């Protein structure tokens, strides 16, 4: 079963001995493996390798703050846009669902297993995503971390079916899952030559497990290299999660089924549609 560490920051300050024990446990898991089935699949390793390659060679700073940076994704010779030559400005949503062992629990989910509540909320979210947007799904569960449905349109039924097949168990490979999703979004961005918008939606109830799955570096790489927007729905996690980085990513603490649905709903609300007026307001004259 996954080892969850709610409110790690506070407990570390107040219970130093407990932090020591947790670190020792993490070290043990790092060297001897987990009793949970959380080994990363080959695809995830590859994604991690590619994500740390030249394409993402500048993990400092924040892409959004560099107004004149316009270099994502790095195109390679052989990349080609649509045959029409008009790059697509399609929206892209890549969902990562936590199917770790702790999702069997029934805390803050009205007595239902959390996975059941999450799947139900995601089903509604999927229906709300515009049909012309690309949607993809990756899951980490008893089968490990892998993409279950590739980014695309017309794949909503396949995603619904994949959600019903999630078999909870294993650890919480947050870093690998973010790297996997980022890699898939980057690949899609090459086809769109960087136009459109890109959203990584992570629904999780846990902290990185094992420790080497701390997602901090992966998140920094994503923020420094790309315009990908990271949305994390922390289910029964409260506010103090490593992915709660105010101003840099969207984080929603969902402590009930209703809040989980609202959090997912906000993913779409947080992708505002800009029109010409946003950029050419006559009142903006100096």
């Amino acid at each position, binding site marked *: 079963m996954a080892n969850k560490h709610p409110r790690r920051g506070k407990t570390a300050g107040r219970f130093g001995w407990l932090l020591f024990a947790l670190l020792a446990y993490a070290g043990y898991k790092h060297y001897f493996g987990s009793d949970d089935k959380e080994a990363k699949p080959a695809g995830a390793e590859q994604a991690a390798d590619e994500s740390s390659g030249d394409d993402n060679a500048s993990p400092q700073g924040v892409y959004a703050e560099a107004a004149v940076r316009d270099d994502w994704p790095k195109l390679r010779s052989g990349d080609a846009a649509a045959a029409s030559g008009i790059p697509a400005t399609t929206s892209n949503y890549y969902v990562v669902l936590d199917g770790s062992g702790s999702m069997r629990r029934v805390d803050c989910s009205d007595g239902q297993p959390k996975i059941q509540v999450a799947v139900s909320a995601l089903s509604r979210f999927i229906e709300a995503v515009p049909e012309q947007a690309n949607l993809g799904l990756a899951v980490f569960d008893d089968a490990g971390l892998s993409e279950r449905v590739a980014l695309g349109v017309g794949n909503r039924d396949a995603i619904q079916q994949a959600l019903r097949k999630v078999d909870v168990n294993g650890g919480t490979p947050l870093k690998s899952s973010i790297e996997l999703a980022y890699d898939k979004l980057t690949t899609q961005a090459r086809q769109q*030559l960087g136009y459109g918008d890109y959203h990584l939606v992570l629904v999780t109830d846990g902290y990185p497990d094992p420790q080497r799955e701390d997602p901090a570096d992966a998140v920094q790489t994503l923020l420094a290299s790309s315009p990908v927007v990271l949305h994390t729905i922390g289910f029964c996690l409260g506010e103090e999660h490593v992915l709660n980085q105010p101003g840099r990513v969207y984080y929603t603490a969902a402590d009930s089924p209703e809040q989980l649905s609202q959090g997912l709903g906000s993913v779409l609300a947080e992708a505002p549609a800009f029109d010409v007026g946003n950029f050419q307001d006559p009142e903006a004259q100096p």
Partner: protein
Amino acid sequence: MVSRWWPALKGFVVVTAALALPAAYAAAPKTVEAPALTTVLARTAVGEVAAGTTQVPLITWGGDIATIVANGNATRTVRGSAFATEGLDLNLVREDVFTRQVESYMSGRSPYLRGTLGMINMAADLLAKDPRTKPVVIYQMTWSAGGDTLVVKQGIGSARDLKGKTIALQAYGPHVDYLTKILGDAGLSPADVKLRWLPDLTGTDDTPMRAFQQAGVDAAFVITPDALVLTSGGTVGSGAEDSVKGARILLSTKTANRIIADVYAVRSDYLAKNRKQVEGFVHGLMVGEEKLRALMAAKPRGAEFKAAMSASATILLDSEHGVADAEGLYGDAEFVGHRGNVEFLATPGYPRSLDKLDAEIQGAFASIGLASGSAKLAAAGWDYARLSQGLMSNSGAAEASRFDQGQVAAVVTRKQQQGTLADGELFSFEIFFQPNQNGFSADLYQEAFAKVVDLASTYGGALITVEGHSDPMAYLRDKKAGKPDVVLGQVKQAAKNLSLSRAVAVRDSVLAYAQAKGVSLDASQFAVIGHGIANPKSGLCGGDPCPPKTEREWRDNMRVQFRIIQVEAESSVFKPL
């Protein structure tokens, strides 16, 4: 002067160039003055056209292979050939020295003139002095499509950089109108440059190539084999083996593929008395071109192909073994066929018509003293429906897309990311739009759209990027207001998407405008880019766009830029033939 174009010298030029003294030690080539032909040939008398076998001039150019094929692969018309079928008896005579051709034409030894439209324009004033010799354009053979090249030295990045520079080219040769068109499109005139005239085109010590090897000459119009020598194989000249250090190709007629038109003209008196024969000559040329096209396309190539190439090598290159070079000649020319003749000679709205080119050339030549500016070449006014009879494809194939649009989009985006979009730039200009403007109708941008149509039509081998830019004020306002990074990122990305949408809208409007004018542009030639707020006109302040200080600066950010880019080295963007 020697030939119009002589790729047969490819091997010769390379070998002799390698054996020659280093360029720095070579003697300076002889330059000449280039007064108008009215002065040069002032004493040439006009005579009646000789009776009997009709003498027809050829020049060393791929288009002339079709003439040889139409004549039965011989200088004298062969029984059963296309020309014989028209009832003609012709004697083909190669004459690469244009002034000698004009003399033959005026004296009556031949009723025909063979040259580029620029060359014939140079003679137009002289020939119009006598109504008998006033030239009438009867047929377009080809467009130059790769054989003629402008090479430049370091420091010349685009055509407008030619201002104040010294340019070498052959006097009365095929590149004079090539020069004036490029200057005109860059907003320059011949008065903005210094011209150095050379007597020969290639193969001697008195050519533009030799002049380019001297200090003080910044650019030269040369045939492509010479350009390859000067630029170390079409890259950047290393300074070794007759190349010039730092020299590169600015553009060739692979890019500027609607500038040099090769044509036949005929004397007015001969046309009036022998219209049926002249029409038969034109029809025979069309049949010959179709036959040549079929011979080149056939696989495997048979004895007929070998006979045609061997005869062409003998007549045009003085060597029956120069078959490969004759094929090279063919490859640098784009035959226009019946359809192209209709466009060029009988479609007033066609952007590269005889009338359009004539007006351009006359105006430009007047500024350098080669023409009065008032001479106007007439077209024969053929019945093209009748001329189509007996042709395999009487309307000709519609022009296919030349570019792989998916590859084009990726290549220009990669250049955008690398900041190298300007590297192949030939020309560029901008249009501006108003706040809250969604549409880009032709009514608002008539002049700019007409310019795009003209450039797209003239530089058919170049890409035209349509680049949208967004106003950065929304981003700057949000940043000043302390909006978080995650919001700023979305604003920035939305600006990028919006600028792309604008570029697409402008591209669509240009294509619609062209269509409304009866001009069919190749949509694949246009690539759209959305820069978002990454390239503000107001400049950069730190890492951000500078807030505009004036309304003018603010409005200047709202723009769409057109850029004409030479992509001859980007083979992936061209569709396979």
